[in-house]
């Protein structure tokens, strides 16, 4: 794998800005989709633009993630690929969510060039809103130092293993490189074509960067499995589940912030999911009482069954939770497990089919193990 070496003079953000500017000028792209700081300066919004002046104001790497990039991309491409070639600057988890959504036919990536970078993590939204200036500073120092400060980022960012090259078209490599250099790496034919159209030659060796990334990845994998095992240990049985979700106010914000939950009408918001008022008293008598809002464990567990196979551990659910339930840790724990069952990793590769869209007559071993009863009967029957 080869890349183009870039010189970092005025910070990493300006390297990205310069690249985008050049892409627009050379007409290699028609527009860019980037996070831009809102006029009130206390948040970021996704902006689609081809205006250089707007680009000057763009993040384009945002400290926080109020809206998952894949959701912005979904608004742009939900009815098809469109005719404009757009460069979207997104975190690796946003790219992975976009890949999942494209498999689910919610996003069309044909005319989109995904540009991602070695991510040092996102500042929790509430922290950012509470102290925008301080958060900007902390994020900038993390970005320039190319090192994650766990206390400054979302808990899932500290244990993220897909912080670097994912299934994007172009990647900006930073980790393990000297302070004044960065690597622009084409990661697909589309990405390579764009760089070529812009006259950027990719002849730099990337092995040093790759080594640094895999070193950090190994470290993170270890940390992740330990942290998630801890989360899992507290989630045992009805009591564990109830304790985890005891504060849930039933707002379903986690579901609406989730990039993967794309259904227009969520089952859990539908009429059929609501209990029949006439039957509530009977249930209350049978159980000794009934809590409102009800069915919280069902909502969260049900959501695990619906979306954990595509969960990219972006942590938007935790950001959206008004009562600070560590939703993202819980769902990441479950996602790692269900995805491993099918030897699948959400967003890893857009050529890899969704586990529920395919099957094998002779199923993978783990599935066999799980549905053992039925399969044993089957053998006896034969």
């Amino acid at each position, binding site marked *: 794998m080869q890349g183009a070496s870039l010189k970092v003079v005025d910070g990493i953000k300006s390297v990205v800005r310069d690249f985008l500017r050049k892409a627009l000028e050379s007409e290699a792209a028609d527009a860019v989709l980037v996070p831009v700081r809102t006029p009130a300066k206390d948040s970021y919004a996704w902006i689609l633009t081809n205006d250089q002046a707007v680009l000057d104001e763009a993040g384009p790497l945002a400290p926080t993630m109020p809206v998952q990039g894949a959701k912005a991309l979904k608004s742009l491409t939900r009815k098809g690929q469109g005719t404009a070639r757009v460069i979207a600057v997104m975190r690796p988890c946003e790219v992975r969510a976009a890949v999942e959504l494209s498999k689910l036919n919610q996003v069309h990536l044909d005319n989109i060039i995904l540009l991602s970078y070695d991510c040092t993590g996102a500042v929790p939204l509430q922290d950012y809103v509470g102290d925008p200036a301080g958060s900007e500073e902390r994020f900038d120092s993390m970005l320039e130092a190319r090192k994650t400060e766990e206390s400054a980022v979302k808990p899932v960012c500290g244990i993220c293993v897909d912080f670097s090259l994912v299934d994007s078209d172009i990647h900006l490599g930073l980790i393990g490189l000297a302070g004044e250099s960065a690597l622009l790496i084409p990661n697909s034919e589309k990405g390579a074509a764009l760089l070529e159209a812009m006259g950027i030659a990719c002849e730099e060796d990337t092995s040093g960067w790759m080594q640094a990334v895999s070193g950090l990845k190994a470290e993170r994998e270890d940390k992740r499995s330990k942290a998630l095992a801890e989360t*899992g240990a507290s*989630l045992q049985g009805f009591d564990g589940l109830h304790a985890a979700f005891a504060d849930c106010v039933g707002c379903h914000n986690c579901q609406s912030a989730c990039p993967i939950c794309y259904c227009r009408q969520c089952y859990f918001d539908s009429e059929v999911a609501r209990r029949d008022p006439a039957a509530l008293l009977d249930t209350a008598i049978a159980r000794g009482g009934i809590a409102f809002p009800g069915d919280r464990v*069902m909502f969260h*567990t049900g959501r695990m069954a619906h979306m*954990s196979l595509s969960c990219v551990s972006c942590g938007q659910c935790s950001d959206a939770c008004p009562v600070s339930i560590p939703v993202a840790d819980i769902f990441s724990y479950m996602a790692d497990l269900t995805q491993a069952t099918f030897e699948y990793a959400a967003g890893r590769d857009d050529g890899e089919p969704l586990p529920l869209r395919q*099957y094998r007559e002779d199923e993978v071993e*783990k599935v066999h193990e*799980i549905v053992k009863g*039925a399969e044993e009967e089957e053998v006896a029957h034969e």
Partner: protein
Amino acid sequence: MDKGFTPRITALLCQWCSYTGADLAGTSRLQYPTSIIAMKVMCSSRVDPVLLLKAYLSGSGGVLLAGCHPGDCHYEVGNYHTRRRFAILKAIFDTLGLESARLKLSWISASEGPKFAQVANEYTDEIKKMGENPSKKKMFL
């Protein structure tokens, strides 16, 4: 009359195979317990795992999902998809320390009345041994 605990088992049966199999068990006058509350669905793959979860959290002693044998699906591949979806739910149950033994997947064809009766009997016995579903007494779910 047996006054012991009789569980309620929610049975979701595919209409082409398992429901017809249950019918055959009835018309063949095979005995199976009244614990089975049968519901006909078009295909076992039509059953969203959340419906099984809902039955479990609403206090069903057991939840039985049955469809055609793999390879025999009326819709050709529905039950292969069922198998995967069921595996996910079961994995979630196991991981969260919920009783995954209360979930059962079975393949029963239209001609297998005796097998339906056998599965119904055995599963009822198994659930009887497990006792009441603890969710039945939980206020805060």
